[in-house]
């Protein structure tokens, strides 16, 4: 049991002195500093066969003032998933660019730049990926309040605020009677 996973972890531990553990079968995670992440990813890609970059996840730990980045790579030969995790400062958020290792990392990083405001030095591509003409704080940061922004920017339909029954309005429009049991939910 878990031989492949242990072996992978040992190789990585001896090469980079990383912390890490086997989560369960087919899942291995390692933690390192952000400067080491490109080197680890390049090594697992070229030497260990982890050729498929699944995605880059960012988790905002607002209380700690940190962003956690998770690089998920998968090996089609071993059928193992490796997570390379790191924590970076929230302000200023800078992370080494890896789009020279995987081309598709370019779009992932552009999304992170837009949604979290993480800078990747040397990243080419339009500043805008998903949003358009956005001038507030990057929206996926936890201190961005989406409900406040929506209330301020968009119109609200009357009746949404208290979620009361709107049958009365509808009956006025269509001319039918409100049934007796429904009257207690009415607006007035």
């Amino acid at each position: 049991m878990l031989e492949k996973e242990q072996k992978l972890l040992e190789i990585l531990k001896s090469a980079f002195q990383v912390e890490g553990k086997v989560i369960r079968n087919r899942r291995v995670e390692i933690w390192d500093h952000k400067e080491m992440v490109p080197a680890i990813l390049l090594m697992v890609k070229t030497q260990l066969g982890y050729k498929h970059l699944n995605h880059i996840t960012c988790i905002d730990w607002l209380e700690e003032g940190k962003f956690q980045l998770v690089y998920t790579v998968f090996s089609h030969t071993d059928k193992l998933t490796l997570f390379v995790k790191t924590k970076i400062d929230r302000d200023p958020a800078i992370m080494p660019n890896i789009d020279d290792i995987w081309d598709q990392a370019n779009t992932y990083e552009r999304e992170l730049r837009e949604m979290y405001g993480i800078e990747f030095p040397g990243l080419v591509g339009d500043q805008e990926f998903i949003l358009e003409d956005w001038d507030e704080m990057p929206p996926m940061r936890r201190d961005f309040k989406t409900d406040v922004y929506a209330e301020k920017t968009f119109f609200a339909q009357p009746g949404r605020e208290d979620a009361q029954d709107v049958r009365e309005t509808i009956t006025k429009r269509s001319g039918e009677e409100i049934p007796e049991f429904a009257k207690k939910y009415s607006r007035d």
Partner: protein
Amino acid sequence: MENKRNSQTIAEYIKNWSRKHSLFIMAYGTGCGAIEIPATLTSRYDAERLGIRGAATPRQADVLLITGYLATKTLKRVIRVYEQMQDPKYVIAFGSCTINGGMYYDSYNTINVLEKYIPVDVYINGCMPRPEAVIAGFQQLQDKIARGEADNGTRYKENLEWYRANQHRVIKNWRMPDYNW
């Protein structure tokens, strides 16, 4: 003999009658409701028997279907498409999210009330509306056309300033050509 029928002149009546039986819908799937449009137009529900069928470009289309939520980025394109359509033009809004925001009421990127930005003829509620509901919505629109009440294109032109003010509130960088009616 009076030259009238249902309080319309005969010419108007015939015009509306022919309009209501040829509704070309704009092929623009703006949101998730677009998944029920193929089902509505194909063999089982067969909306074409009511004269409803697809059109490829705004110039040829009569009906703009807003199939669900509109992200602000799409709203800009929808306004552009709507202004390019020829009169008479109708808008059918699809799903709860065009009525009051639906489940996206607190999202920073979707508008909540569609009729503040472009005039809406018929709302179809539900998330998402079934093909039967879509056809019922189209029939309501047809009734409205037959009564001669579907003139929202003119309403939009007359109240353009009010609509523009609302649109500018959401679309921050207005880089669109002024449409020449």
